[in-house]
């Protein structure tokens, strides 16, 4: 019975009272249609309380209105976990902000002598009910988590039923006490609305945005100058504070975003087994490569001759890279008579490694600055950036038993002799004595 009164009777009384009361008050006493400002009487506390209160309550009301007016869109939005967490966090933070500011507003009503002179019982009552209302809302939020997600479904139909004149409070009657208290005291607030300073919510001075600016002018020159100086220094301070606040806030946001990214940088990396294996094999391969290079170096220090290739594997179209005694790249080809051509592959211009493919004019290309080198003579083409020829290296052909058959020094002088059958099976070496 009592529940029916609270959730069906009271709402209709409140709504009727709100409509009729607001209209009558506007008709009879339009000038009282605001909240009596106390800013002149006490400004320091007010600045820290009124602004946060209005910010907080606007956000909270916006959330309530959206959730109950467009339940479909709202439900879709809160099904995103991030959004839901954000809404809940924002709601709780806003209500804390509201509670603190309401407390300050209450306290100042009681400690300031000037204020007490203009404070009515209703002013205090409104503050107390607002405090109670926000507090009960916070309790709902803390005890019955994720209200943003469940409320549209659980309470939406009730609100809807009230406004469509088919009141049905059966859902609400089953709700936990905090929710019931929150709803009932909301109706009380609506009931009180036309009687108290709350009506100022209906008198929004939107035309302030569009009217032309007003300038206060003193009719006494000295006062005017002093006034302007004060305004200027105040403006400057305000500008600085604003900018400093903006900079700090954006720096804070930035560091938050950056931290999100950058902290992860030091966390353990999330690699799959396959990725781990791939990485490890790559690393090993590189280490082997380095080891091979070291081995090549050691080999060149200790050995008198170094194997380059089987002569039969060489061709005149594509050179074979190897490393000479100075650890520089070199190329080995085979000429028309079947004899080897061995020359340095380090470009004589700026030291790039010359390519291995022979073009149809018998030349190889250094890709860095486009010099063509004739593989027979080593000479660069005319006009090439490289001026000096690629030097020839000395070489030795050996048979499979390791006997030297034919040798050529870097200047092209040959010693020894070789027949064509030996040639096919011979092995190409470079030797220390020619380097």
């Amino acid at each position, binding site marked *: 019975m009592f529940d029916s009164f609270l959730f069906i009777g009271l709402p209709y009384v409140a709504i009727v009272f709100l409509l009729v009361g607001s209209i009558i008050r506007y008709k009879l006493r339009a000038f009282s249609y605001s909240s009596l400002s106390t800013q002149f009487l006490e400004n320091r506390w007010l600045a820290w309380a009124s602004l946060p209160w209005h910010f907080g309550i606007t956000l909270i009301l916006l959330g309530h209105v959206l959730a109950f007016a467009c339940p479909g869109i709202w439900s879709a939005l809160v099904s995103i976990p991030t959004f839901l967490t954000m809404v809940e966090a924002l709601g709780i933070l806003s209500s804390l902000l509201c509670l603190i500011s309401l407390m300050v507003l209450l306290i100042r009503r009681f400690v300031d002598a000037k204020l007490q002179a203009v404070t009515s019982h209703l002013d205090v009552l409104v503050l107390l009910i607002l405090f109670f209302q926000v507090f009960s809302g916070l309790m709902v939020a803390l005890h019955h988590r994720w209200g943003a997600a469940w409320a549209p479904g659980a309470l939406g139909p009730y609100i809807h039923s009230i406004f469509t004149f088919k009141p049905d409070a059966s859902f609400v009657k089953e709700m936990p006490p905090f929710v019931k208290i929150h709803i009932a005291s909301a109706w009380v607030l609506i009931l009180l609305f036309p009687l108290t300073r709350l009506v100022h919510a209906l008198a929004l001075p939107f035309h302030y945005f569009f009217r032309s600016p007003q300038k206060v002018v003193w009719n006494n020159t000295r006062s005017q100058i002093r006034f302007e100086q004060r305004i200027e220094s105040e403006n400057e301070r305000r500008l600085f504070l604003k900018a400093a606040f903006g900079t700090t806030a954006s720096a804070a946001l930035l560091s938050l975003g950056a931290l999100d990214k950058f902290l992860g940088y030091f966390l353990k990396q999330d690699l799959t087994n396959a990725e781990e294996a791939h990485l490890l094999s790559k*690393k090993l391969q590189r280490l082997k490569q380095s080891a091979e290079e070291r081995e090549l170096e050691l080999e060149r220090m200790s050995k008198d001759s170094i194997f380059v290739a089987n002569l039969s594997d060489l061709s005149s179209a594509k050179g074979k890279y190897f490393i000479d005694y100075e650890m520089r790249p070199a190329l080995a080809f085979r000429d028309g008579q079947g004899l080897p051509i061995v020359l340095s592959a380090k470009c004589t211009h*700026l030291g*790039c*490694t010359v*390519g291995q493919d022979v073009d149809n004019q018998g030349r190889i290309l250094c890709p*860095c600055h486009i010099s063509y080198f004739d593989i027979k003579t080593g000479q660069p083409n005319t006009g090439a950036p490289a001026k000096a020829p690629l030097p020839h290296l000395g070489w030795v052909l050996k048979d499979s038993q390791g006997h030297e058959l034919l040798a050529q020094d870097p200047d092209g002088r040959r010693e020894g002799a070789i027949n064509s059958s030996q040639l096919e099976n011979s092995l190409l070496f470079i030797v220390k004595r020619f380097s």
Partner: protein
Amino acid sequence: MKDRKSKFLKLVTFLSERMPIQKLSFESMVTKKEVPVHRMSWAYYMGGLTLLFFLIQLGTGVFLLFYYQPTVSDAHASVEYITYFVNSGFLIRNLHTWSSSCMILCLLAHMITTFAMKAFARPREITWLSGTMLLILTFAFGFTGYLLPWHQIAVNATKVVLQSIEEAGHYLPGILSTLPSYIKEIIQGEASVGQATLSRFYALHVVILPLLFLATLGSHVLSVQLHGMSQGVDTPSKKAERFFPFFILKDFWLWGVAFLIVFILALCLPFESFYAYPLFEAYDALGSTPEGIKPEWYFYFLYYPLEILPFWMVMLGMTLSGIGLFLTPWIFKNTSRKALSIIALMITAYLIIITLFGQNIYDMFKGTTP
């Protein structure tokens, strides 16, 4: 004796005019400092912007140090690891590359505008000199940092540059002709670009250059604050803006915008996407040099002339302009800002044309098609 003393006094007066430490107070450097307002005022922000990018380099550089391994066998793999596996590693690395380019861009703009505004004139000679040092240090940062990823383009480009140093020996007389190859050997550390080179570049890039840079930067910024902003235009502007809080807040605002831009660029566009991939494979000491080896874009102003003109001509030009850069405060002592602006515009035009169209000009001269 008397002569010596007066010389000493002259030196003291010279220095005290250049480094007016009596102005070393919070009042004159912060609260009373003013920034002239005129049509070139935007140029006063360039130095600060360069500083922002340097700070980004410092921050991201330290981050990279945590994973980078400066050895021939591991360097490339560790950079790849940062890019593909470390959380937000790609972001840090892209920020480092993007912001390095931005830093050089702002630095050049800063230098050219200070030149055009005659901000080097007495008593700001030392500020100009330390700025020139910072320019050289920044190029050194770019050069040493380029090698560290140890990919094909990095190692081969470094090889080419080091070989070019040796090349300069052919144009020097007598005993001096061996000097460049000594220098090359000192930088390179072994017969060809290898582990020794990598270690040297690493030490330079992460320890020596930053320390030098910070020291020089300290002196640069201090002398800027001591002298205040230069007037910037021939007829001093009547309007001025307080440095604190107005100018500095605008400066911070600009920093925010610049950071946002670089951050988005780093997030969306890897710097390496401007080149063909084979250039970013690990360096292969035994293979042929791939095509398309080039230095970073900020060396194009030097690279393309080297490709097109005779070596001695470029060397001579660079030496002269290097000396000119250091002697600017004395060479252009009596030049009007109008004339300086024309020179600055010509330099800017050269830099822009050679950087954007260098390849086309090269193709035109060589008769090759790209």
